[in-house]
């Protein structure tokens, strides 16, 4: 049965789009048929992170308006035949999204895919509420710092009240994905610890993605980090998270930076 998964956070720049691309690619590599849908109308990025920006012809809004049909707008990934992208429109804004239009497209995608991953825009306005509206499950992306955690808390409250599932008296299944986690900084108390974040948000943990240059490097070449450098720490953390989404039980690893003596000396001097 198709699952609609929204990747959301409230705050911007915490890694929603990166996580959407990485989880989508990881699920597709596991043989699932996946479509990633960009809801960030006017500020689309998912096409860049997936390296599909030069192949966009029609977009989400064109399909809503009936200018194009869904199969014309869907872009198949060149590396993974199970991964598809439905791009957002760059020339419009969030007001172009309508509840009926989104509902119709999600319903049509449900018949074609195993996973529909909706990349939510930041904020709590129209774009974000429509991205979560039809979700069955949600990945709440949080950085271990107070403003991101508080915004995520707000989003969790909205997932529990503003979604179709919530209005029907059911629950959107929520997963917490902590990104940009830096063990060294957390141990020095410059970041919230995992325990603090879990205590405040009281939501099951899906994964911990370490802060890494590999993520930026992958974005720059237009590939999900799980494809670009599968052996890197963030890629492995994303693959584990994707397997947990599939129902696997995998022990949670708090990524520890393995540093040599020189690194530690330099690290201390810099601090």
């Amino acid at each position, binding site marked *: 049965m198709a699952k609609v998964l929204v990747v959301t956070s409230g705050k911007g720049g915490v890694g929603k789009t990166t996580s959407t691309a990485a989880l989508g690619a990881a699920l597709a590599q596991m043989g699932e048929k996946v479509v990633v849908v960009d809801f960030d109308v006017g500020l689309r990025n998912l096409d860049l992170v997936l390296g599909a920006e030069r192949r966009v012809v029609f977009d989400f809004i064109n399909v809503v308006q009936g200018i194009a049909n869904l199969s014309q707008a869907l872009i198949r990934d060149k590396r993974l035949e199970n991964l598809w992208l439905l791009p957002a429109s760059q020339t419009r804004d969030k007001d172009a999204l309508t509840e009926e239009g989104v509902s119709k497209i999600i319903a049509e995608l449900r018949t074609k895919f195993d996973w529909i991953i909706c990349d939510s825009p930041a904020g709590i306005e129209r774009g974000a509420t429509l991205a979560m509206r039809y979700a069955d499950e949600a990945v709440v992306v949080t950085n271990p710092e107070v403003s991101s955690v508080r915004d995520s*808390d*707000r989003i969790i409250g909205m997932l529990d009240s503003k979604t179709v599932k919530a209005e029907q008296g059911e629950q959107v299944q929520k997963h917490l994905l902590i990104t940009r986690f830096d063990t060294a900084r957390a141990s020095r108390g410059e970041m919230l610890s995992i325990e603090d974040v879990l*205590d*405040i948000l009281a939501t099951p943990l899906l994964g911990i993605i370490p802060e890494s240059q590999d993520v930026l490097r992958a974005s720059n070449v237009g590939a999900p980090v799980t494809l670009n450098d599968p052996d890197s720490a963030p890629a492995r953390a994303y693959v584990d998270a994707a397997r947990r989404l599939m129902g696997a039980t995998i022990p949670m690893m708090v990524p520890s930076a393995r540093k040599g003596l020189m690194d530690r000396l330099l690290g201390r001097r810099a601090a």
Partner: protein
Amino acid sequence: MAFVFSPVVPIIDWLEEVDATLRQSPGFFAGKPVVLDLSAVDLSENAIAQLITSFEQRSLRILGIEGVDAARLTASMPPLLMGGRHCVIPNNEPKKLEPKPKPASLLLDSQIRSGQSVVFPEGDITVVGSVSSGAEIVAGGSIHIYGTLRGRAMAGINGNLAARIYCQKIEAELLAIDGYYRTAEQIDAASYDGPMQVWLAGDVVQITPLN
């Protein structure tokens, strides 16, 4: 007092109406005196006898007959009545149930998230879970939080000086009782560990351990 049946022509249709009434409230006429008022119809002796029979088939016992010439009644029929008067039966309306008093407490069975505001001026609020930073609880009575209070809690908003705030752990942004308040700056969260209660001593908001 008796119930008066006044047949009209055609009798068959009228009897159907009677049957419909009986179906709606079977047993309503059981054991009650019934009078047949024939002033609206002109029936022969035979027809009257038939009508009486059909009433008996419906388990209605006729006490007397009204509005007819005595010559048309036989000895076996109910006697002729005269001088009957109409009366209005007072409608015994079922007593209205008194509205149940509203519960004076509100139970919230989940964490209160940032941006959510719970207002209950009628009484106490109980939260089974934490209250997040950026959330707000406003109660006419006391506030009970079985978790950490990280947001704002305002108790006794309708002038209830005796209202209190209880929580398992205090990291509040604002505490208020009947308008007297303390902001996070005036609450040294680090010095309050474990379950706390917040109450009003004069015009000072006090925070003391619960045990």
